[in-house]
């Protein structure tokens, strides 16, 4: 078991270096002078140019520069935003909880609806439920997120007026951020109606971001269940006279969940991708929106740092998923 853990952790190292390399070269790949790129200024005079060259360490050999960069990354220093002059890491940490809150809710949404849907489709194979659910899943999988968001806003916010159009909470409220998760913070605060407002603002973005994972989870659950339901041990469970719900929910589902769990973990990368679009549509103040704005403003340190951080987080989640898989699978555990 420990050998498995160490092998898996060992794979992290080359991926980490690969990502930092990519981030490192990013600035240098932008057409034009890297000094101008980093400083965000144009037409720098020669004296200032030499100063900045030394300040950014660009007069050192490439390998040394990379070494310095890695050292900085490990310390958490990812440079400063050109626009706001605030440290990239600080801005990221301030905005990340919003994205995490949205992503967690979306994942929860996907699991709560997707797993039962997949189980139902598998148990009632080839029935109207099966075809209907899988058709809906495929549609959800093919849906352009940005359009889906606009459509839902059109329907629920504009036509019906049920949900707000943008933001995390009504402007009237000001909640002191303690955990960064507005649902928790607003519930803990004294402000009346704050929690409901936060919840209401979460509904549409959660549905939009969660649609794609929902489809994937439903399809994956269905195919895993179909495979498991044909196994010998399910036949044994039936031969023992167990009621059908027990055969499906305990004997079958337990084993079907194994491939589904790995899929869930791999959805994190997809969730971040979707978050970029969702946050743009709903003006959700998370890292996705932050990155999009950085592109328009040519804020390269933000792009570089944001990309690296998100990539490293996805990598960490992948490792966790693999290790959890090892825990669930008794063969590896023992």
């Amino acid at each position, binding site marked *: 078991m420990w050998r498995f853990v160490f092998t898996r952790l060992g794979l992290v190292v080359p991926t980490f270096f690969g990502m930092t390399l990519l981030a490192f070269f990013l600035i240098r790949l932008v057409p034009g002078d890297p000094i101008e790129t980093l400083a965000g200024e144009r037409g720098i005079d020669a004296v200032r140019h030499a100063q900045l060259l030394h300040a950014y360490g660009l007069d050192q050999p490439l390998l040394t520069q990379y070494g310095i960069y890695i050292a900085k990354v490990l310390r958490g220093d990812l440079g400063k935003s050109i626009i706001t002059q605030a440290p990239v890491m600080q801005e990221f940490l301030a905005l990340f909880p919003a994205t995490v809150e949205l992503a967690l809710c979306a994942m929860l949404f996907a699991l709560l609806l997707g797993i039962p849907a997949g189980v139902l489709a598998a148990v009632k194979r080839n029935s109207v439920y099966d075809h209907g659910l899988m058709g809906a899943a495929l549609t959800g999988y093919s849906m352009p997120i940005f359009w889906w968001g606009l459509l839902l806003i059109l329907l629920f916010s504009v036509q019906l007026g049920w949900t707000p159009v943008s933001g995390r909470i009504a402007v009237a409220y000001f909640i002191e951020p303690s955990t960064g998760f507005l649902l928790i913070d607003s519930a803990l605060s004294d402000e009346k109606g704050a929690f409901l407002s936060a919840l209401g603002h979460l509904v549409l973005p959660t549905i939009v971001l969660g649609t794609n994972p929902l489809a994937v989870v439903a399809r994956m659950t269905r195919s895993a269940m179909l495979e498991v339901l044909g*196994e010998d*041990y399910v036949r*044994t469970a039936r*031969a*023992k*006279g167990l009621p059908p719900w027990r055969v499906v929910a305990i004997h079958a589902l337990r084993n079907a969940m194994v491939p589904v769990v790995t899929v869930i973990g791999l959805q994190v990368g997809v969730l971040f991708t979707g978050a970029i679009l969702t946050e743009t549509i709903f003006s959700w103040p998370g890292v996705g929106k932050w990155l999009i704005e950085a592109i328009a403003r040519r804020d390269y340190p933000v792009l570089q740092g944001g990309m690296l951080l998100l990539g490293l987080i996805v990598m960490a989640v992948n490792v966790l998923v693999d290790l959890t898989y090892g825990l669930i699978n008794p*063969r590896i555990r*023992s």
Partner: protein
Amino acid sequence: MPAAAPMHPFARLLELADLQVDFPSDQGVLHAVDGLSLQLHAGEVLGIVGESGSGKSVAMMALMGLLSFPAQMRATRMQFAGQDLLHASAAQRRAITGKDMAMIFQDPMSSLNPSFTVAYQLSETLRLHLGMDARAARNHAATLLAQVGIADAASRLDAYPHQLSGGMCQRVMIAMAIACQPQLLIADEPTTALDVTVQAQILELLAQLQRTHGMAMVLISHDMGVVSQVAQRVAVMYAGQVVEVQEAGALFDAPRHPYTQALLQAMPQRSQGAKRLATIPGMVPGVADRPSGCLFAPRCAHAQTACNTPAPIHRDGGSQVRCHFPLHPLGAIA
């Protein structure tokens, strides 16, 4: 050695009349079981032999209610211990399955759920059918494991199936089957997937348990040698039909159906030093080439023109033979 004589010769435990199991497919309807009729007395051991595709497993799965889509089942009568199974509700059937009527299968390692311990899977039956609580079930599980010859039973309780050998898994399966003292135990090729040395042990265990508990047993096998050791009566199946039923000794000495005779001659033990092993020419009929008359006629050494019509069934007490021209007429041999 055949088991002891049944306790109540006139107590009919099982009555199957005219069982039909069809599998519709693109190429036509497959008659997996075609008009099977069997009776079984309390405490009796019946062996069912036949090639793959003869319908022996399907028939018993139909009896247990384990058939799944797309199987279609019909029967004139299906009675077990006086209860009509054909018109029983699903819940009523489940009350019997695993309790009064139990089945063990061919591949023991895949027939146990890999994600649960032996204790869990054993206790499940006990808690469901006998209403035991968790601790009582666990203790009884240890007793059962000892009964099936697993040394050091208490330490095996928390083992997972992949940690046990094939023989031990089959013992666990047997323990699960006899847990509620069933009146009938169906063993579907219980030794086929096991090593030769273990085969004899499992057969001996089954025979011994049958004697101790006085339960009826149906032993399915394609291997006549296996059946000859345990069964009192033997039924021979071909292409979904029962072609002969006789007392074991009489069957082996003087078979009545040409197919039985051919099977016996094909046994390697019976080759008696001849240069070539005897085989049966031809193949079992599939969906497309099912004869309209006697099913064995195309391969029968004694076939005549009359064999192009369906063969009649001659009965005498517990024996039957389905043939136009039985090798020994029924009633002529004691």
